[in-house]
């Protein structure tokens, strides 16, 4: 633009470079710790370059888990994956149907349904844990995948996004399909859903990450190692005196817990960014 001094062009790189360091350094340390032995990590100061125990550490983390845990990262990854997929797919399906009803039909309880759903728009599970715990326990869903997934598909963000999108779809298309004799469900499945590809992809990214990163809820309802998710396993490994913690196994598990959601964001960055900012509009 107007200013062209060297300093002005250099400064942004300096600030952004600094930000990169603040982002990368903590993760670099985790990686370094996951390649070292317990003794090396405990010797202050901990080394900041990788060691030689990478295969051994990841092998143990993946197939056995830390000594004080009783669950392997393989099992926990499977659980995190089931939970994340269940939440993402469940929420998308349920929300598409609800948004379709609210936008394309006129029915008596429409306003009521609308508000009943939207009141939950930003409601984090943290504020309703105890009563929800009781409901899940009454339904016999403690230590089960249903218990992990169902309460997490309540919030209205996805309905909100799909509703916004549906309202921008020209109604002539719906009318035309009706005149052609197609049922509303045929319109939904063959025309509307394919048109909604991009918002669906965006929602998938956001909900997969949301599900994968859930912490408080699995902490409450999974008491059996069989149902531990990665984050719960990490918490359990870290509860205990510092010297007993197998930092190298913990850190390998931390890295395993970070990789899948980061890959999802990296691969679908564009859909993710539009999806996030569209919920606002």
């Amino acid at each position, binding site marked *: 633009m107007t200013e062209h001094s060297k300093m002005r062009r250099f400064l*942004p790189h300096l600030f952004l470079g600094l930000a990169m360091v603040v982002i990368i350094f903590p993760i670099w340390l985790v990686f370094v710790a996951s390649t070292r032995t317990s003794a090396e990590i405990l010797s202050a100061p901990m080394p900041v370059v990788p060691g030689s125990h990478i295969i051994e550490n990841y092998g143990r983390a993946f197939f056995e888990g830390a000594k004080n845990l009783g669950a392997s990262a393989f099992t926990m990854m499977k659980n995190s994956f089931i939970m994340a997929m269940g939440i993402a797919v469940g929420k998308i399906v349920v929300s598409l149907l609800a948004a379709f009803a609210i936008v394309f039909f006129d*029915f008596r309880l429409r306003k009521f349904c609308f508000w009943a759903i939207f009141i939950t728009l930003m409601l984090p599970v*943290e*504020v*309703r844990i*105890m009563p929800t715990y009781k409901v899940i326990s009454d339904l016999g869903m403690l230590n089960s995948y249903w218990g992990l997934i169902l309460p997490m598909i309540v919030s209205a963000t996805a309905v909100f996004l799909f509703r916004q999108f549906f309202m921008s779809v020209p109604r002539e298309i719906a009318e035309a399909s009706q005149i052609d004799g197609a049922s509303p469900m045929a319109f939904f499945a063959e025309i509307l859903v394919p048109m909604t590809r991009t918002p669906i992809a965006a929602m998938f990214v956001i909900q997969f990450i949301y599900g994968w990163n859930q912490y408080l809820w699995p902490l409450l309802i999974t008491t059996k190692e069989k149902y531990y998710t990665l984050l719960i396993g990490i918490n359990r490994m870290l509860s205990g005196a510092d*010297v007993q913690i197998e930092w190298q196994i913990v850190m390998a598990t*931390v890295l395993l817990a970070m990789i899948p959601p980061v890959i999802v964001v990296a691969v679908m960055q564009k859909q993710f960014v539009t999806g996030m900012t569209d919920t606002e509009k």
Partner: protein
Amino acid sequence: MTKQYEFPSKGLPYLLVLPQMAVVFVFFFWPAAQAVYQSFFVQDPFGFSLIFVGFENYTKLFADPAYWDSFGVSTVFALSVAFSSMFIALFLAVQANRKMRFSSFYKTMLIWPYAVATMVAGVLWLFMFNPNVGVIAWFLAKVLGIKWNHLLDSGQALLLVSIAASWKQIAYNFVFFLAGLQAVPATLVEAAAIDGAGPGKRFWAIIFPLLSPTTFYLLVMNLVYGFFETFPIIHQVTAGGPGTSTNVLVYKVWRDGVINLDLGSSAAQSVVLMILVIGLTVVQFRFIERKVNY
């Protein structure tokens, strides 16, 4: 505006909203109603007896200095996380939003920490500041002579959880500020430059006011995050301590309910929090709807 075309079916829409309404009722309204109901009773920890006490749980709660203390800690924590992460994100978005080398690399790197779990962010910072194994704790002690122990020092504990929570939230704010900045018409900024406005003046007089919808939206979302969604960091890093110095509201609900088994009080606290969040949602929603209808 003409009336939009709508499908004439009568029963079908009910069938379509049924799954969503079912989850909302079973996992939101029913628990919420139970919380309200339970907040009027005291229950012994084994659930054998319920004694109706009216508003006693609430009056006790609001008369309890520990609750107000927790309110105070949460407010300081949420505000400092909201302001620092929004300020840094806006600053970085302004830096990254120009034509320069590596700008898409910078953007990608600033976006992906969004995928890191809040709990993992807590672990990352805990690991660096752990008084026994932490690299930064070591550096502070040996090089700068600052004794770091967030398990004993309340100020350090609050600082550490705030840094971890802000570190994670910057990515979220960055995405929105960057999108907002990209929507600012370049012609406006250039016109101001021609009129002699310097970069600082251009930012504050033109760009920042145009970003205000984004800023307002983010402020509400960041407060919700700071108040309610940071439980994993508190639980993992400080467990509310030392003493009650990081005992934020959601942590207190959890501790009173799960550890101390004071279900009546925990329920009353849940009700207060739900009212807070629903209030924020309504504010946010009215704001969004108004913007859409322009």
